[in-house]
């Protein structure tokens, strides 16, 4: 047997340990981000307590709820500003602004009359299915707008009136109704899309309508740009309701399943989009309701009983009227052949 000898790697290990034990204090401190140095505080007052924290701090958590790994999220500050001020300003400002503009327009123009008066002959404009789709969407939208406004403005406007004890159940019901009514809203929206998409494709004639603002400002009331089933203004309402409504539905459903698809930043952005679309759509719908009721004689019949006066159809939708005439859909008139 050979005499036992320390192998080379053992010698190296001993040497390394010796060096490390000498260097131990600095080795341990090197692992710290902050080591005593020239910048070390010399008095208690120099020790900072308030270090500005403007970046998101994300770490690791050992619990299943991974969204809690975000230690500090300063974006909450902007969202707070949005929720407490900007959102209220957007919804309230646009709604009040739109109402003011319409009131001024009403004083200027009054109810837009049927120029040639009512003929008494009726043309079917929207059948039962059309009207069902419209009113399903309309009623759902109004309910959701109202409940949404209660949740947004309830604290400054309703709590001082009815108190905290009464407002909490109101807000609770408003929230549930808002969530559940979204289902008929989406159903109505899809029906509207399927039924009226064909007649809402932008066309060349729409430019004329837009350039002349649809004859809205001609007080004589005899200027009507030619239009098919829907004029450019109605097409704009259609597309804002369909696209805006789908955007609202998408963001709304994602808000209903919090953190299922996105983190806290995504939830905040979703809420902002939902609120901005709501502000735009509420203003658009106020305009839509105005022109469909007190703004224009004979317009409500289209969605009310479904049949419009022949003269109304001739003035507002000449091309569509001629088509109906050709097909023999006008009461008391033979197909023009």
């Amino acid at each position, binding site marked *: 047997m050979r005499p036992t000898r320390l192998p080379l790697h053992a010698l190296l290990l001993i040497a390394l340990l010796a060096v490390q034990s000498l260097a131990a204090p600095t080795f341990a401190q090197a692992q710290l981000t902050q080591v005593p140095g020239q910048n070390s505080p010399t008095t208690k007052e120099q020790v900072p307590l*308030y270090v500005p924290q403007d970046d998101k701090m994300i*770490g*690791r958590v050992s619990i299943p*709820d991974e969204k809690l790994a975000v230690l500090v999220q300063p974006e*909450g500050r902007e969202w707070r500003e949005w929720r*407490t001020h900007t959102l209220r300003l957007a919804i309230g400002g646009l709604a009040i602004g739109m109402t003011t503009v319409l009131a001024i327009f009403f004083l200027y123009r009054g109810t837009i009359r049927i120029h040639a008066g009512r003929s008494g002959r009726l043309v079917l404009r929207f059948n039962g299915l059309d009207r069902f789709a419209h009113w399903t969407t309309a009623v759902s939208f109004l309910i959701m707008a109202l409940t949404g406004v209660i949740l947004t403005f309830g604290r400054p406007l309703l709590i001082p009136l009815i108190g905290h004890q009464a407002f909490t159940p109101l807000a609770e019901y408003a929230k549930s109704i808002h969530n559940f009514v979204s289902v008929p809203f989406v159903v109505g929206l899809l029906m509207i899309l399927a039924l009226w998409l064909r007649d809402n494709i932008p066309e060349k004639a729409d430019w004329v309508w837009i350039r002349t603002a649809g004859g809205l400002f001609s007080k004589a009331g005899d200027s009507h740009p030619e239009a098919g089933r829907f004029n450019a203004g109605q097409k704009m309402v259609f597309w804002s309701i369909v696209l805006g409504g789908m955007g609202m539905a998408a963001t709304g459903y994602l808000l209903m399943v919090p953190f299922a698809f996105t983190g806290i930043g995504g939830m905040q952005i979703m809420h902002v989009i939902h609120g901005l679309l709501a502000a735009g759509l509420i203003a658009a719908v106020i305009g839509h309701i105005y022109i469909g009721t007190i703004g224009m004689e004979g317009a409500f019949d289209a969605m009310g009983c479904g049949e419009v006066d022949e003269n109304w159809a001739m003035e507002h939708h000449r091309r569509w009227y001629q088509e109906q005439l050709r097909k023999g859909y006008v009461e008391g008139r033979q197909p023009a052949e």
Partner: protein
Amino acid sequence: MARMKFLCDAERCIECNACVTACKNEHEVPWGINRRRLVTLNDGKPGERSISMACMHCNDPPCAAVCPVDCFLQTADGVVLHSKDLCIGCGYCFYACPFGAPQYPRTTDFGSRGKMDKCTFCAGGPEPDGSVEEYQKYGANRLAEGKLPLCAEMCSTRALMGGDGAVLADIYQERSLRRGYGSGAPGWSTAYGRNDRGSPFTPGGPSTGGA
């Protein structure tokens, strides 16, 4: 009157999770609710730090500002509490809170999340101190018994401290001076740095800023 604050000294925290366990046990917190949690920054890298985080009881609480039903209140000690009778579980406070403190018993139940739950600084809720109702809704009220939050009292390295903010600041500064470095008290500039009005508020008061 003391202004109650939390201070977690990241240089001392060893991520033992005793504070988390103490909190869960003391208040019988249900499964899935994390009133206090430990977050490890730079995990496995040089400069790794763990911080114990719960509601910081801010001076100007964002949760109170965004609440649609105005259910938050602040005690004379600066502790931010909320009323579970008024809360509708909308989740807005979680979007606004910088620290992720608000918790909800349900997550994806078609938008219904139950009543929000969060750290109470062991100070119960708006119900009478020490009542059964208060314990069932918010957990123990140690502050009314003259005791400080159990998480901080349990901390074996004295990393997490809870109590009078002025005293905590003094201890932390003394400590940092002795060891030669201080990193700034985590979360303090966010929680206590702005609008240090230090005045208590109740639901419906003007100072929550949301109305």
